[in-house]
């Protein structure tokens, strides 16, 4: 029977068929971070269970550590215990811990791909919903809760029910000034933020070959904002070249052997999907969100919805409540809205390519006097690369704060918080109520659009910057 890419990886990891569509799935990589990791270790300690495969577990601190220059694990007092706990548990259980300031530290979903930990055809889990990011390299990766996390630590397996499958086929090319983040927001706005619930998504089609690995990671990262906990792209030559020479990727003959296996990781021509969607990249414009779910996204030159245009009473009430939270008026243009903050970072957009994209806009200009702008590189490696390339200098000269790697303002669990009522253009992935701080008003956008907003002091079309 014809199989999908997802089927191939799933089938290759079934330790035991548990019946009723359920399987005990082997896990190749368990990524741990300071927010959800310590609780899992606590559970194991309480049950006197050892970590099953410390050699397949990898930990770093990203969520609850400050991104302030010269930070330590204690700079954010609320996260200090979590940081110390994760470090201690990793030490006693021989799980590698990529500590602050060391190679490998960073947002789990940025550091694992760049270390070569994320490999095509592997299964990856992490106590974080954006684990789908790793699908950009052709891994079957998904977020898990605390109970499942303890289960993986103790057994290196997880019990899962096979999801339905959706394929999104991409055609055409992105216009100049339009990026993967815009594409992701375009898809979410078009399909809705729950369109993917219950599905594993394969991002496919001729246009995918033209996307870099970083762009695919962004696309897969945002797939959970469609409701899908799993998303993946078929690995190809672009993938293999990205992996060549990375620290944990195989090398020499072993690499060539792995590549020959990875080339078989694709959906058969006649494979059946439960749902097929087609997207033309040529339709995508720079996108910015206006509301409190990523589905509330508009082309940057668009107008905020007017509740009075809605015939449905519930829908009208929802729009009114959202506009009130966001401090916007129905029918207003998004462009020209004054912003207080700009954040370039997060597992959606803090890779080196994102910083290059933003630096292109920023170079030789200055952040508007009314705006506070931050760049938080996704990992220690990204930070060092950006400093070596001179990007850090470009940002600093323009008035941006250049900070230490971590989740920072995307989760606001680390002291990096947007003050109540203030407006931020952010390259992160969630504009939920209070996500970036109680009362914070988030507009999601690409690094280019965020950078352009920092310079202009308002939401602006980055193609005019």
């Amino acid at each position, binding site marked *: 029977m014809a199989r999908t890419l997802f089927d191939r990886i799933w089938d290759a990891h079934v330790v035991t068929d548990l019946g009723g569509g359920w399987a005990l799935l082997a896990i190749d990589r368990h990524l741990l971070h300071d927010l959800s990791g310590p609780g899992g270790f606590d559970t194991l300690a309480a049950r006197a269970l050892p970590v099953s495969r410390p050699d397949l577990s990898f930990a770093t601190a990203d969520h609850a550590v400050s991104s302030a220059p010269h930070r330590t694990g204690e700079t954010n007092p609320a996260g200090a*215990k979590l940081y110390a706990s994760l470090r201690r548990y990793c030490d006693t259980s021989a799980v590698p811990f990529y500590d602050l300031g060391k190679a490998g530290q960073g947002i789990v979903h940025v550091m694992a791909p760049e270390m070569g930990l994320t490999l095509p055809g*592997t299964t990856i889990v992490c106590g974080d919903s954006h684990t789908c990011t790793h699908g950009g390299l052709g891994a079957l990766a998904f977020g898990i809760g605390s*109970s499942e996390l303890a*289960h993986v630590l103790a057994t290196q397996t997880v019990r899962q029910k096979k999801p339905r499958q959706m394929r999104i086929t991409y055609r055409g090319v992105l216009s100049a000034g339009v990026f993967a983040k815009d594409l992701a927001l375009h898809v979410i706005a078009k399909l809705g933020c729950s369109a993917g*619930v219950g599905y594993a998504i394969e991002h496919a089609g001729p246009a995918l070959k033209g996307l870099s690995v970083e762009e695919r990671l962004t696309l897969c990262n945002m797939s959970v904002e469609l409701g899908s906990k799993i998303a993946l792209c078929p690995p190809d030559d672009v993938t293999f070249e990205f992996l060549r020479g990375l620290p944990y990727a195989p090398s020499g003959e072993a690499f060539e052997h792995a590549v020959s296996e990875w080339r078989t990781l694709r959906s058969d021509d006649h494979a059946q999907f439960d749902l097929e969607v087609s997207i033309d990249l040529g339709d995508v414009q720079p996108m910015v969100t206006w509301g409190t779910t990523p589905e509330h996204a508009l082309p940057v030159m668009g107008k905020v919805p007017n509740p009075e245009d809605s015939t449905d009473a519930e829908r009208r009430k929802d729009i009114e409540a959202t506009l009130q939270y966001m401090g916007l008026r129905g029918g207003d243009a998004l462009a020209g809205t004054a912003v207080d903050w700009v954040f370039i970072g997060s597992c959606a957009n803090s890779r080196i390519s994102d910083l290059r994209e933003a630096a292109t806009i920023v170079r030789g200009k200055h952040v508007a006097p009314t705006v506070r702008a931050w760049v938080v590189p996704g990992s220690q490696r990204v930070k060092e690369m950006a400093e070596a390339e001179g990007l850090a200098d470009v940002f600093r000269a323009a008035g941006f704060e250049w900070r230490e790697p971590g989740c920072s303002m995307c989760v606001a669990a680390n002291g990096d918080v947007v003050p109540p009522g203030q407006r931020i253009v952010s390259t992160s992935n969630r504009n939920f109520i209070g996500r970036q701080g109680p009362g914070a008003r988030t507009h999601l956008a690409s690094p280019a659009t965020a950078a352009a907003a920092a310079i202009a002091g308002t939401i602006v079309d980055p193609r005019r910057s």
Partner: protein
Amino acid sequence: MERFQIVSGPAAPLLRRDVDTDIIIRIERLTGLAREELGQYAFEVWRGPDFVLDRAPFVGAPILIAGANFGCGSSREAAVWALQGLGLRVVIAPSFGEIFMSNCFQNGVLPVVLTEEQVAGLAEQAQGGAAVTADLGACVIKAPDGTALAFSVDPVRREMLLEGTDELSLTLRRQDTIRQWQTDDALRRPWVYVGSRSAN
């Protein structure tokens, strides 16, 4: 895990769609509080005398009637613990965030999927605080007017809740099978098993 059989009581309507787990429990509550303390911070930004779960007869209600895509967003299991802290054992909605739904089952909370119309109808009837009953054995929600709304739930999940099964204990009995699978796999895909190879 506590067994789930029948839960009956007031069902609080909260029909806004796409309620994310950041709304259910703010992230800063995850860094310093014990699981048992989370209830008071559930739906923090909405709490107050006008909020449905702070109003009679819904204070301590065991059932929540929610909008579509309830529990979307972050994987934080603390969202379920926070709901439990309020006394909730059942959430009824047209659809759920996937990881949230799985986390519910892990903690003995029953997520019930009904159609938009059924959810709206049930919410209407439940407004005064009349008892709604969730019967997992029969897979039925009994509305205040006596109507029985059948729901379907994954049989494996249902069994787990009815029995109060601990997944981890079940899997630990399969350790030998898992080890054998890993040994075989290391021959098939040696590149996966990086061991303690230095990253530097």
